[in-house]
């Protein structure tokens, strides 16, 4: 179990009950480490109420292109993306860049 803060920005909050910040306790699967991959699965299964909204967040088993993922303000590409092992107090933010300017 890891407790992290998750932010949905750039309009993504619409599919999460219009709430931008969520404090989560992400359970680990059978004692394994909790990775960002685990977190994404958790978000898709537990937090997206409307099944039709899943494709707004996820595509081909990863975060949809056009959504910027930051782990503690660092581009997740530099942190190993889904492999990153979460620690207590980490902040993961998802920002949509798809809306108009």
């Amino acid at each position, binding site marked *: 179990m890891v407790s992290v803060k998750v932010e949905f920005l750039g309009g993504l909050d619409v599919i999460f009950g219009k709430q931008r910040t969520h404090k989560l306790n992400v359970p680990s699967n059978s004692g394994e480490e909790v990775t960002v991959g685990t977190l994404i699965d958790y978000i898709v299964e537990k937090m997206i109420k409307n099944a039709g909204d899943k494709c707004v967040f996820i595509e081909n088993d990863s975060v949809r*292109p*056009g959504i910027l993922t930051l782990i503690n303000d660092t581009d997740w590409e*530099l942190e190993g993306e889904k492999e990153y092992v979460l620690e207590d107090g980490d902040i993961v933010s998802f920002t949509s860049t798809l809306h*108009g*300017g």
Partner: protein
Amino acid sequence: MSHTPPLDPKKPKNVKVSQLCELCHARKALIKRPKNLQKVCKLCFFHVFETEIHNTIVSNKLFVEGEKVAVGASGGKDSTVLAYLLKLLNERHNYGIHIVLLSIDEGIVGYRDDSLATVKRNKEQYNLPLEIVSYRELYDWTMDEIVACAGVRNSCTYCGVFRRQALDRGAAKLGIKHVVTGHNADDMAETVLMNILRGDVARLEKSTAIMTQSSGSPIKRSKPFKYAYQKEIVLYAHYKKLDYFSTECTYAPEAFRGTARELMKNLEAVRPSCIIDIIHSGESLRLLPKKAKRAPPTSHVEVRSDGSISLPRQGFVDGNRCERCGYLSSNKICKACMLLEGLQQNRAKMAIDSDVSVHGAAKLTRTLEKLTF
């Protein structure tokens, strides 16, 4: 004297050498730049991003000293970052320009009213004058009324035509001859792609210009973010904690543009440089000169319903004016006036799903409002 690396106030523990910024080699890299895959830290990112925009402005000679410049401000990420950066660069590099925020109120409840609130906050935050021009005062229609009358499917057509004119009219009202917009590299690549997919070759050549001006029009437009990635603009706004508004327009975006955008994003995921590469391809394309059309017989003169006659035209003339509103137009009547006429007569081509009662009611209310005794 030995070199002291810049201090990092929040130096994270155990940073590997491979995680360090490739520019300062001192702080932890936070960003992988899509343009060149370079890993940079926050401070170096600010520096390179700002410098690149400055270089774009200088090398394209976008501004003249003493010029008044209107920033087309929607309250969204691009225009907010643009307004912030222009003010910053203007002070840092002494461009000597006067910046004004110019916003268009399309009249979309739940979307534009909220984003305009953001622009009003930006006005205070950046201490810049703000002018708001509304569709309602210009055209006597709000987008909500237009959609109620003409249906949601064509909303972007109306909105696009009206906004273009509204920005020009707003600028003219302020005596400004230069409008800058926040169009970024992603937008431009998307437009190039769309024009290719549609075979719209006439627009293809113009679509990559950083500055556009029609002869006869006093107002020029430019796009200082032409080479700036959307991802970097969003990151810049995020790290600088800029106040911007992010909600998709109530009326869904044009289906085709949406698909083109998705295609671009998928391409970018595989090959990030493709956005700048598409722009480069667009810039390098040159159209074959058109074959001269056979000239119509000179005796052919059109007699209009009001009895006036048309003089034979010399093909496409840039700098023509609309007979109704005087706005620049390649036809006798400009696109906006044509759309307005369609709305007025309630015979816009999508009349099938239009709601006559709403149209009638809106018109009637307007007419009643204008009555005086």
